[in-house]
């Protein structure tokens, strides 16, 4: 039994580490609207640069769930939480600072072309009783870094570091 477990472990860890090193050697893409590269692998790290949807980043290093990467677009290097990134290529939004792009639109997934602003616009036209006013307003609620820091310090809370599954 122990031998089977040992063999299984070796096979899995070997292929896992292989997969990880491949992922680390490559580029990754920002899959959220906007996020920051930071000086440290934590949210209390100061902001080095802002990266946006579809920016390609060169991966340098990984520490828990944080990736150290460089952004050729704004010539900066810093740490970003892995949940902001995907290994897929994404097409920049038209009119965004990182458009136009050499990414082939043929690489886009169906979902990427799927539920977007255009679909919401169509939904709102057909469902006028559904009011998006407060949805837009709640998205505008932002907490400044200064507000957050004083809230944490006063409440004797630890600055969040971004979790690792």
């Amino acid at each position, binding site marked *: 039994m122990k031998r089977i*477990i040992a063999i*299984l*472990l070796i096979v*899995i*860890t070997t292929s*896992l580490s292989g997969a990880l090193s491949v992922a680390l050697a490559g580029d990754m893409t920002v*899959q*959220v*609207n906007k*996020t920051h590269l930071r000086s440290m692998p934590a*949210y209390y790290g100061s902001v080095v640069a802002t990266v946006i*949807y579809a920016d390609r980043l060169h991966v340098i290093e990984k520490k828990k*769930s944080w990736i150290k990467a460089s952004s050729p677009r704004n010539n900066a290097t810093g740490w970003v*939480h892995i*949940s*902001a990134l*995907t290994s897929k290529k994404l097409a920049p939004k038209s009119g965004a600072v990182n458009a136009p792009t050499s990414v082939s*639109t*043929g690489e*886009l*997934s*169906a*979902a*990427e*072309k*799927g*539920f*977007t*602003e*255009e*679909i*919401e616009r*169509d*939904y709102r036209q*057909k469902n006028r*009783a*559904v*009011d*998006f006013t*407060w*949805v837009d307003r*709640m*998205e505008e*609620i932002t*907490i400044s870094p200064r*507000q*957050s820091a004083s*809230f*944490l310090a*006063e*409440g*004797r*809370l*630890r600055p*969040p*570091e*971004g*979790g*690792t*599954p």
Partner: protein
Amino acid sequence: MRTLLLSSVLALLILYLSGCQTVSTIANVGADIAAATGQISTEQAASIKRSTTAASHAFERFTPENEYYIGRTITANILTRYRVYRNEDATTYVNLIGQTLARASDKPETFKGYHFLILDTDEINAFAAPGGLILVSRGLIGCCTNEDELASVLAHEIAHIQLGHGMAAIRSGRYTSLGRVFGVEVAKNLGGEQLAKAASIFDDTVGDIMKKLVDRGYQSGQEYDADRTAITILKRVGYNPRALREMLRQMDSRLGPESGGFGTTHPTPKKRLKHIESALEDSGSVVMPSVRKIRFDRVMTGV
């Protein structure tokens, strides 16, 4: 030791398989075998199966942007049923706690971040829409007597988003149907027929989640998983994980069989209390500084 070793192997196997198409099936079989042979409890096996099912749904590759637009429409629909509680101090306070907790979760980054609003209703209820839009009722806030207990409510909702429970409610054929609408042809703007078809799939997708989120509730096991994940998130920032127990006890005393909201969609607080005990035993306790009670009272008294 043997159990630990086997659990580790199983966990590694699941992690490894998470890149495979067959993740759900194989991991579920593995979990069943481990449970049947007594290596892990049936509850642990169920939790593994739920996680891998959610993960395999996530691998159907709805992007964070898709999640965002789905979540916006769900939130707009919920906000046609409930009024927003307009109290700027209370809303800011809930966002301060919520955004702190979100950044301590395993999914701190969503397409446009986490945002919180209070619903103006005595009903005990909360909703976490995919993408990070979270609504909490005055009635639920009424079950909290201090900041740590309010944090436990918000951490539970963030956990639903981290664990992908909303997106997992989408019927599995939706993504494939969406793929068929677009085919291989790439159009910058959708043609009339394409748009109509994609819009119809969007309606169905929103409907799938609304059914679970608003009407029927998630599976009980998903609620227990969200409670356990909430405990982890609370600990990471220094909130007292046992505040979840206190909040559930107060909810138990307030929630009647006719209450609606959590009374319809969630397992009873008593059942939830039973399921968090083991996680709380391991988590220790934190003495809450008085400032967290003082600032809660200052903002939330009268809400």
